[in-house]
């Protein structure tokens, strides 16, 4: 009951499915965007290799701007460049951008409607050993509160590539969220991607619960769905790369069909994606929900998988949460 129109990877549940971090998708996407549009420039705050800004730098050294460790300056220099016709992508870790330059993004990018694309890398606990100081868990919430900001958390490196290209073609400000650790590349070139559109990945005939996911946990959601379906629990998986503008039509549709909604994100469950879904459903079609995310604690050092399990964000926990909710 995988949605065939989603054109997912043929290896979708194989052990040797390709693995890549979504930041690689940024690297590839921004090089493509740079080829297509000479206005594209990349600014980076002393993290060229790990953000993959380096890939752009190698192709277009003249259009790569080194900012040093100065995220406030990065955002505002980019706002100035946008004002005179450039299409700037700014790259750092999400904890520093938008963490360290929030008000600059608010005033000189969002309110100012400067077409800067803010690229927050190393989001979530899957950063791993660097620990809590480097694991951003509030960026979706911060960015979606800003009027006019588009917010995207791609599910894999391929979708990340497409999202970057789409962002380059969009006039206004965009926030893009990427992860550090390799995750399964389960979408393909043919998988549809459009800003603001959700994508149904999985659908049982008689769904009792819908799992809505954003970011790279989409894969875990799928694995959970397969198990659920096999054990007789009907399920829908709706993948929502765009958190803002929210595809409310699709949400309403699956909420009506399944009657129960689980949201999944690598973010505080306060204020983030699940929160956006809850805000919408509470006002339009209240249903029982379960918001899976980080439950009001900071992250910590550890391996990516170990942490996702510890914080209850692996396929098993998703499955369990959905099963419990479905049985209410």
């Amino acid at each position, binding site marked *: 009951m995988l949605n065939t129109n989603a054109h997912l990877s043929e290896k979708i549940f194989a052990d040797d499915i390709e693995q890549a971090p979504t930041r690689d998708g940024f690297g590839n996407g921004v090089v493509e965007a740079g080829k297509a549009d*000479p*206005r594209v*420039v990349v600014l980076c705050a002393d993290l060229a290799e790990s953000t993959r800004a380096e890939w752009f730098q190698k192709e277009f050294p003249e259009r790569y701007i080194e900012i*040093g460790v100065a995220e406030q*300056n990065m955002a505002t*220099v980019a706002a100035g460049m946008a*004002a005179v016709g450039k299409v700037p992508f700014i790259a750092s870790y999400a904890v520093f951008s938008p963490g360290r330059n929030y008000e600059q993004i608010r005033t000189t990018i969002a*309110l*100012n*409607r400067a077409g800067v694309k803010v690229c927050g890398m190393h989001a979530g606990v899957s950063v791993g050993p660097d620990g809590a100081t480097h694991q951003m868990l509030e960026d979706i919430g911060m960015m979606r509160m800003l009027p006019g900001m588009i917010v995207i958390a791609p599910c894999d490196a391929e979708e990340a590539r497409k999202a970057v290209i789409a962002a380059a073609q969009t006039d206004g400000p965009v926030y893009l969220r990427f992860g550090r650790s390799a995750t399964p590349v389960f979408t393909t070139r043919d998988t549809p991607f459009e800003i603001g559109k959700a994508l149904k990945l999985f659908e049982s005939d008689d769904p009792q619960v819908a799992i809505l996911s954003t970011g790279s946990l989409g894969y875990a959601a799928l694995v959970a769905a397969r198990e659920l379906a096999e054990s007789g629990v009907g399920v829908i998986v709706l993948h929502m790369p765009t958190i803002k503008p929210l595809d409310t039509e699709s949400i309403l549709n699956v909420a009506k069909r399944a009657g129960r909604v689980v949201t999944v994100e690598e973010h505080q469950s306060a204020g983030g994606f699940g929160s956006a879904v809850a805000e919408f459903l509470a006002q339009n079609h209240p249903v029982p929900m379960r918001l899976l995310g980080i439950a009001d604690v900071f992250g910590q050092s550890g391996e990516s998988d170990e942490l996702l399990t510890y914080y209850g964000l692996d396929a098993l926990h998703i499955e369990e949460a959905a099963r419990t909710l479905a049985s209410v």
Partner: protein
Amino acid sequence: MMTDSEVIEIEKKVASIRETIIEMLVAAGSGHTAGPLGMADIFAAFYFHILNHNPQEPCWEGRDRLVLSNGHICPVLYATMAHAGYFPIEECLTLRKFGSRLQGHPERVRLPVLETTSGPLGEGLSQAAGMAYAFRMDEKMWDISCPTSDVGHDMSHIGRRVYCVMSDGEQEEGNTWEAVMFAGKNRLSNLTAVMDRNNIQINGMTEDVMPLEPLADKYRAFNWHVLEVNGNDIPAFITAIDEAKAIYEKPTLIIAHTIPGKGVPEIEFDYHWHGKPPTKEEGKRFLQEIRTLGGKVQHEYA
């Protein structure tokens, strides 16, 4: 060099701008008085002499850019742009009112003839540096006739300069120093920053609240060229701008020593006038003071 009559023309504008500032602040019932009055000479010098711009074609890509970083002094920006023909002078009286394009702090989306949005301090110099950096990229591209450039090859765009007006108070913001370092590194000689060195901020005199001196040494240590000038002396200021244009290898900072509240002797130098408007009665008196002085100056030169 400017001729005497050119200077007189600008000084006439300055007097009108100061009057408009008082009128708009009285009408608004809130807003900032000291900074705008102190900077009227410099804004008039920019919009009536220095800037390469065209109020009739405000979006002309070849224009110089003036970025106002300390957005709270926008009354002087609005008044000067109105007098320069960007929008009707009467519109100034809508300052800070519901529905006005003249927001309490300048917003480019609402008033598109502005170059940016400001108010939160310390963010203008970075934006100006970004513009200057982009201009330099484009001029390099044109040099090598980059075939993929879709910016066009309009030669009239060559030589665009970027000016950033900022306050002394905002030298306390870290973002400012990040910008200073970036511009210094990149030797953005097409960028000139003008600092309103009026020695006041909200809580008092800058040297009491958070000492800034030696300011010139700071910028020099960040690889800038630094000039100091009387910011209420139009010819001297224009000479400094010309010197800045001649500096090849570095961005230039002009520390413009101004008198906060300039033109209204009873409030000059008083930091309490940072953020309050004149009452109606005060407004009348202030206008009188401005006109008398203005009259004197015109008399002298006439």
